[in-house]
């Protein structure tokens, strides 16, 4: 019991951090949607192990059902943006129903227009940000492309933090070889004080050996 309690406590900081970053990603798609007055906005994260794109955050149309859904990492518009690292803006998507169905796979509905931009952190590509159905007013301008890039930069930083939080969580899990440290901390915490003090003295000695 005590073991679990402490491990939970150790993990709590990490888990809380992950929840906080999820909120940050959600906030980014909400703001992206608001700024572009768009119908929806979404963020995909690249799952390198599975080589797939995963929906991490969605604002607007299709929101609830899309989180956690997966897409191929190198086909379709999101895949092209991920692999080539270049943004893409497409309008008049409804012209062809076959193509529209293809797009809907990555959006949850058939949009009229789509902006997709890579989320780059240093030389790593972490995912893709999409903004769907901004109002068709005047011509698209390169300034909008720049604004999209600024948003992408913010989202990439958030995704990088999320990735770090997940890796930290894996470290305190039992599955990880380093889990022994969390388990040891839990055991020490549960010991009566007369046994804990000599145990701590022993660990102190170990620390001096490892880190002279």
């Amino acid at each position: 019991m005590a073991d679990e309690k402490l491990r939970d406590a150790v993990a709590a900081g990490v888990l809380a951090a992950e929840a906080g970053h999820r909120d940050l990603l959600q906030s980014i798609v909400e703001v992206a949607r608001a700024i572009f007055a768009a119908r929806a906005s979404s963020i995909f994260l690249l799952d390198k192990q599975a080589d797939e794109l995963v929906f991490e955050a969605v604002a607007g149309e299709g929101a609830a059902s899309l989180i956690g859904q997966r897409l191929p990492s190198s086909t379709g518009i999101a895949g092209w943006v991920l692999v080539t690292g270049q943004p893409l803006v497409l309008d008049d998507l409804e012209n062809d129903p076959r193509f529209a169905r293809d797009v809907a796979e990555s959006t949850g509905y058939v949009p009229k227009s789509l902006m997709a931009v890579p989320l780059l952190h240093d030389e790593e590509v972490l995912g893709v940000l999409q903004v769907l159905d901004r109002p068709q007013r005047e011509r698209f301008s390169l300034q909008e492309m720049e604004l999209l890039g600024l948003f992408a930069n913010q989202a990439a930083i958030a995704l990088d933090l999320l990735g770090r939080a997940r890796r930290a969580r894996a470290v305190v899990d039992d599955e990880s070889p380093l889990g022994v440290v969390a388990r040891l901390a839990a055991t020490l915490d549960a010991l009566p004080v007369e046994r804990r003090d000599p145990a701590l003295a022993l660990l102190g000695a170990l620390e001096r050996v490892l880190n002279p």
Partner: protein
Amino acid sequence: MAEPAEEEYEEELPAWSLPTAGLDAIRMPPTWPDRVDREWAWGGSTGKGAVVAVVDSGIERGHSLVGDVEEAVVVTGAAGEEPQIEEDEEGDACGHGTACAGIIRSLAPECRLVSVRVLGSGWTGSGRKLVAGLRWAIDQGVDVINMSLSTTKLDLAAALHELTDAAYFNRTIVVASAHNMPVESFPWRFSSVLSVGSHELDQGDTFFYNPNPPVEFFARGVEVEVAWLGGSSVRSTGNSFATPHMSGHCALIRAKHPELTPFQVKSVLYLTANNVLEEDRG
């Protein structure tokens, strides 16, 4: 990590200086007029005879805006394996390669198009496939390679640099998209490629020389009507659509003046750029 391209392209050591007796061998034919203009550069050219390779997501067969695709290959191979080149029967994994091919075709209706698909088999290993696809296209000795894509992976930069240099000396013009965001990526930053960004005008034959490189030319890249999947067309924006406009012009020039080196083609494009022509007229 891709094999260094150096060995493949190592040639017999040429004379890197010019003895007086060699002057005849490098005599230039008097084909350039006093003032190069668009009529001289590509007037009457349809791109016939020029071969343009599109290194991208593939090209959809039978699209009315693209027409014939002479050859289509795909780079395959699992992660960790050496990439292989195979005949491609799948077409386009995204729509983007078809869009680029359509733009090139609209400018150079009789050029020969070759599709080199480097996308569609996963994100893992995609950078090495890009390098392998580019190497194959250079080996074919095509006139122009359209690369509306780039990589941020530093470990591929050296291989791409060697390849684009090899292309430059082998008379192949590599036309590459500049990044739309302030990001370090390759190969567009190399001086041996012709790098392209977007202008906002809606004329496909309007392009500008940029006196402040690394981006060398600006071509139409905003709200371009392009070919897309399923025989459709969409309006699209991005430097990746400006690039095939420059590739199309390169094909036109090469078809009319096959003797021109990449350096000379760049010079012709500089002399015929809208801002340079207009400045000249005063």
